[in-house]
């Protein structure tokens, strides 16, 4: 059965794409989680849906071949810029940006879906992910995005972690917080767009946060947490893709359940080592 993934071209692209998003989603997710921005990822994924619906609508009505992944990415990046503006406007109520963007994204999606004469399988694939939907073009686009994400994180790792831990200190020491933050939110938009083919709009934020939540229970430092997050993310994507294919279930569902299973094991393991005299958590 696993051999199928190498035998058929479309499955091979799915498999490689899965490997890529298993790295980039949890990698960026570590920063998203420690900055308490998990819900922003969720809001952005709904804006991405609006972009995809827009692409499908334009394609259907005007027969202009916009790849929905590109329009989704465009919307996602615009949405991320808009979130930043909202967070600056409502400085004391930064979480307000989330319902505004999220509902705006869903509202736009509904309109474009209706204009394109309702649901079709393609849209269903974008919502919950698909094992067979990754085209060769999609794969190359996602590969390019992945290279960009990993490079930028490697180059800006020090600045990102410094800013995430203590923004005031970062600014005082001379780090350009606004620029780095802007870069970060753009990266988030790109990762979401890249991951949607496999996990789907509705579950993409899970792949950015659940492996990190599991890693957080076990890791001692930040670098270790990044490593564990990527390992857990990869494991979840692989298990999810293979079982999804085997049972003909959209992989979004199986990947998220695999992530939750890993999370539960991590929580259980921590409790076990706590009771057997491991590191005493909560000691101050």
């Amino acid at each position, binding site marked *: 059965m696993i051999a199928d993934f190498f035998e058929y071209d479309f499955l091979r692209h799915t498999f490689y794409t899965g490997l890529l998003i298993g790295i980039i989603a949890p990698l960026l997710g570590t920063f998203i989680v420690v900055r308490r921005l998990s819900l922003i990822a969720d809001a952005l994924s709904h804006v991405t849906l609006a972009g995809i619906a827009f692409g499908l609508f334009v394609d259907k009505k005007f027969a202009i071949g916009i790849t929905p992944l590109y329009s989704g990415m465009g919307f996602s990046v615009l949405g991320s810029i808009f979130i930043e503006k909202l967070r600056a406007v409502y400085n004391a109520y930064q979480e307000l940006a989330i319902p505004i963007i999220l509902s705006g994204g869903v509202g736009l999606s509904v309109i474009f879906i209706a204009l394109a004469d309702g649901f079709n399988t393609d849209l269903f694939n974008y919502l919950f992910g698909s094992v067979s939907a990754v085209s060769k073009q999609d794969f190359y686009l996602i590969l390019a995005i992945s290279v960009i994400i990993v490079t930028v994180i490697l180059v800006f790792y*020090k600045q990102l972690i*410094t800013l995430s831990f203590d923004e005031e200190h970062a600014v005082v020491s001379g780090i350009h917080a606004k620029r780095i933050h802007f870069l970060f939110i753009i990266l988030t938009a790109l990762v979401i767009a890249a991951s949607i083919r496999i996990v789907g709009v509705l579950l993409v934020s899970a792949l950015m946060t659940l492996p990190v939540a599991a890693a957080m229970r076990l890791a001692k430092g930040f670098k270790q947490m990044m490593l564990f997050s990527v390992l857990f993310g990869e494991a979840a994507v692989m298990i999810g893709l293979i079982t999804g294919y085997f049972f003909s279930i959209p992989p979004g569902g199986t990947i998220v359940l695999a992530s939750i299973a890993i999370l539960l094991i991590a929580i259980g393991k921590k409790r076990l080592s706590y009771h057997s005299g491991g590191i005493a958590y909560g000691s101050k």
Partner: protein
Amino acid sequence: MADTIVSTTSLTYAYERKNILTDIHFELARGSFMGLVGPNGGGKTTFIKIILGLLQPDSGTIYLFGQPMQQFKDWSKIGFVSQKANTFNKGFPATVFEVVSMGLTAKIGYFKRFTAKHKEKVLRAIDQVGMRDYANENIGHLSGGQQQRIFIARAIVSSPELLILDEPTVGVDQENVQRFYQLLHELNHEHGITLLLVTHDTGAMTRHATDVVCLNETLHFHGDPKEYEKQTKQDLSDLYGHPINSLTHEH
């Protein structure tokens, strides 16, 4: 004339039409250990934030290391330990080593890597605050006093010439407060770091500092701590609105 590393002239800052700071003329000489005292809401933290470039004054000039602030670029010369150091995200999964390394981020810059030399610097700073055994511990698992030391290590790892601390002993127990002042003394005497310490602890101030400044919208006192102690306790009582005892502050 002593080498002045921070100076302000006619500094004024208002927030929602209320003057927080009015016409502040201030000088900090190299090598000194200055205590900045004053009542809550007297503008101490605002003053510090202006010096650090976090707030823009409404008028007045600021010189840092002889340069007008607008032209000053070398922020690694200034280390800062904020009030917030005791309210940081304690669930943040970073080791002591990782946190102290963050003090070098701006100095290393964007495209250069963290080298063995940097690692050595970080370990030395951790050593300097007496936390060598905790380098690989998670920062959230340490006590308040230990965390405070780590934040000092983060501030001194870039070898600053000036260290600014904003009420760093809030939430730290008495025994650790003593060790904390000992550490500041060492940094000042043995490493020649100029200190500017915002505090409520006027007793400790008079024992350790070389200069005391009292701030309540305007500068009320600027000089020798002994002088400060002798000077009209009545004045200060008026300033604070209640009698003042030169005792260590209870938390």
